[in-house]
Every structure is written in C-alpha cells, then in structure tokens.
C-alpha cells in the first residue's frame, strides 16, 4: 500500500547511548535532537511528523534516563519521562518538582515528554523550570569535548537553555535540601492559550518560630520568571507568624515588580499572583 508522505525521508539515527549520540554529531553536525517529541509536534502540527533533515532520536539511550542518588544531590537523566519522575518513591524527588510535573499535559503525554525536553522548550519554560530554579538545580550539557554546567540563574537570564550544535542536556542536578513547606499553583492547562497561563510556587523552611529560608517565584509566559531575591532575604529570619505589616509590605513589593514588567501582566494574572502571595505568607504561620 502506498505511503502518504512525499519527498525524501529524513535521516534518522537512534543511538543506544550518550557516547554513541555524541559521536554521531561528528559526521552530522547539523543533526537535531528528538526526545519525547511532544512539544515538537504541537509546534509543527500537520498530518505527518515534521522531523528535521537529520534527526538523533534519543529514545533508546538508556544511560540518559538514569537516576543517581548522591549524598548531597539527586541527578536526573535528561530523557527521563515525566511519569518516570513521578514514579520515584520516597522523599528523593522534591515534592514541588513532582507537583509541577503532575500538571503537565495528560498522563499519556507525560509518558513521552522528557525532563530535558521540557526545560529546553522556551515556550513551556513555565512548567518545570521555575521549580528547578527555586531548588537551585543545575544542568549538565555535554559534547564530545567534555561537559559544562549551567545554573538555573544563567538560564533565567538568557530566557532559555541554549544548546550549541553537538550538545546534549544530559543531567539535571538537584541539591538535597530540606524544604518542609512547598507551595505550588499553576493556572491554565494544555487547553489554555499559552499567554494566559501562570505558575506560582514557593519553598519555605520555618524553624523554631522563625522563617529560616524562603524562596518564591512566579512565571508569566510573556515575562518569564519573576523572583525577588531581595524580598526573600528580607523575609528570612522574621518571626512567625509574619506580622500584618510585613505581609503588606511584601505584597507591595510583588505589586511593584509586576508594575515594572516589560509586558504588563493582565488584571487576572496580577490578581492571582497577589492572591497567591497573600496565601503563602499566611500559610507560613503553620510551623
């Protein structure tokens, strides 16, 4: 029976390991990586799958799916699927990362979508990236010559994980820290227009009636990640519950930050961010 797709088929390689994948870049420097393919397809929606002329499909590279438990950090392989991440039992994977992964797409999509794929797509940087940023994660990028590490701060500044030709995001390293309180809320889902989505999250460590550490971030699609580290520093060390005055000042700081965005937040987004901020600051009373 005839095949519906016309034109020369793309050249597809399916390396079985990272080393094999990196070696394939030598004769094919223009090759593009294909992991879960979920974001790729939605961007290139046609009856056939629009693959690049030379494609490196990473679905057989088992070593890119490894989870390594260290004393001080957790290493997650780049092509680990989101459901594999959610299946990790115990306290190893921070709950905020699981919460962020659980609300991405549908469960069937999460069997395909990969950790690195999610982080590398600029359009969906609001999914896992804000949680990884709060957790202080780092990304290992490898090529044939060696590896480099990117901090989430660098990625936030650039607005994306910029991979040079021949590079692969191989691991995400998450430092093991104790965050007894986590807050996560995402507004909008796969069917919501991209620019109406919003993600808000926080990590807090109350100790002996004091707020030992706090990290907060908001992600608006047009403006990217908003994190006010000076506010976090001011709130750290405060006695709990936070006095009304401190909470109000914090709210004002967030409001100011929203006012200074290059692309203004919508009334709805602004309202939700401030509401979430109020909610987090009130919940910090629960030691």
């Amino acid at each position, binding site marked *: 029976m005839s095949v519906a*797709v016309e034109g020369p*088929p*793309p050249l597809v390689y399916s390396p079985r390991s990272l080393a094999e994948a990196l070696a394939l870049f030598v004769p094919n420097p223009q090759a593009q990586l294909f992991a879960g393919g979920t974001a790729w397809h939605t961007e290139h929606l046609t009856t*056939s*799958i629009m693959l690049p002329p030379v494609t490196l499909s990473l679905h057989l590279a088992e070593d890119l799916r490894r989870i390594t438990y260290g004393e001080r950090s957790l290493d997650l392989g780049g092509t680990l699927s989101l459901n594999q991440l959610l299946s990790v039992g115990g306290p190893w994977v921070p709950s905020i990362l699981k919460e962020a992964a659980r609300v991405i797409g549908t469960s*069937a999509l999460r069997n*395909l979508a990969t950790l690195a794929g999610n982080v590398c797509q600029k359009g969906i940087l609001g999914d896992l990236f804000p949680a990884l940023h709060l957790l202080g994660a780092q990304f290992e990028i490898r090529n044939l010559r060696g590896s480099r590490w990117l901090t989430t701060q660098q990625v936030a500044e650039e607005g994306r994980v910029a991979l040079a030709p021949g590079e692969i995001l191989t691991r995400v390293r998450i430092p093991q820290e104790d965050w007894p309180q986590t807050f996560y809320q995402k507004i909008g889902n796969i069917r919501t227009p991209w620019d109406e989505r919003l993600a808000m999250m926080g990590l807090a460590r109350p100790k002996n009636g004091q707020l030992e550490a706090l990290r907060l971030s908001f992600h608006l699609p047009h403006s990217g990640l908003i994190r006010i580290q000076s506010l976090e520093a001011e709130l750290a060390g405060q006695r709990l519950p936070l006095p009304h005055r401190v909470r109000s000042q914090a709210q004002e700081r967030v409001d100011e930050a929203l006012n200074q965005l290059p692309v203004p937040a919508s009334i709805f987004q602004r309202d939700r961010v401030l509401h979430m901020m109020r909610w987090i600051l009130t919940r910090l009373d629960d030691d």
Partner: protein
Amino acid sequence: MKLPLILNGDDVTLDGDTRESLFTVLQREAGVFQEKTNCRKGTCGRCHVVLDSKEVPSCLVPFFQVKQREVVTPEGFSQTDEYRQFRLILDEEGLVECAECTDVQIFHLFSYLELFPQAGKEECRMVIGEIPCRCGSRPVLERGAARWLERKEAVRVGRR
C-alpha cells in the same frame, strides 16, 4: 521502511515512512482506529496505545521508534481478561456506554492505574478528566477505579 513489532501479542511487520506517526501506520496497515479521527496533539485520547507497558498518544509517536517494541491497542486490550474484570466492575457501578468516550476512558484509566497503583481518589479524578467528554460518566469511573485498586491491593496483600 518495514519494521517488525509486536501488535496485540502478534509478531507483525508494518510498512511506513519515517515521518509517519504510529497512528497513521496502524490505521493504514493494521486496520485499527478505522473510525477515529484524532486531535494530533496527543490530548483527545482517541489514538492512545500502550507502548512497552506505557500509554502514549500514537499520533505523537514517530513510526520509526516502535521497531521491535510491543504495542497494545484499545481493541487488543478489550480482548484481555483484565479488561473484562475491569469492565464488570464499571458495569456494576452503573456505567452507561458513551459512543464518544467509554472505550477511550477505560483504556486510559486502566493504563494509568497499572502505572500508578497507589493513585488516590483525587488523582483518579484528574486522570478521568483528561479525556474531554460531557457524557457524565466520570463519577462512575471514579468509583470503578477505587474498587479496582481495592481489589488489586487485596490480591497483593493476600499473596504476602
């Protein structure tokens, strides 16, 4: 390009192009999903298959990736004992057949429960909600999922 794979327990060889999705090839070469159109975004659930024990939207899986892998379609799943047992529970809970979503929902929910046997009520509700339909069968599916998990847990504990 001819690729060998296991389709619903049978060794088959299917012919397709690198750029085609598994859905397209299954529809043309194996005669499955004949009456279905899908969203091509992986969100409607109508083209889901189980690929190596994991449910995936076949419209997003490139055909070249299924070489020597195991694919189970909803049609294949409906011939299994597990389907019949799960279906019986749902029927007892009062499932009314919906032409749009019943088969898709059962396949989707069952696959999820296989992957996450510890799923709670809220999680099941979320998973059922992933398949868009207004037929009103969601509460029945939720009750059925809870009973299925109870039964599996009882079997697991009994084996200890």
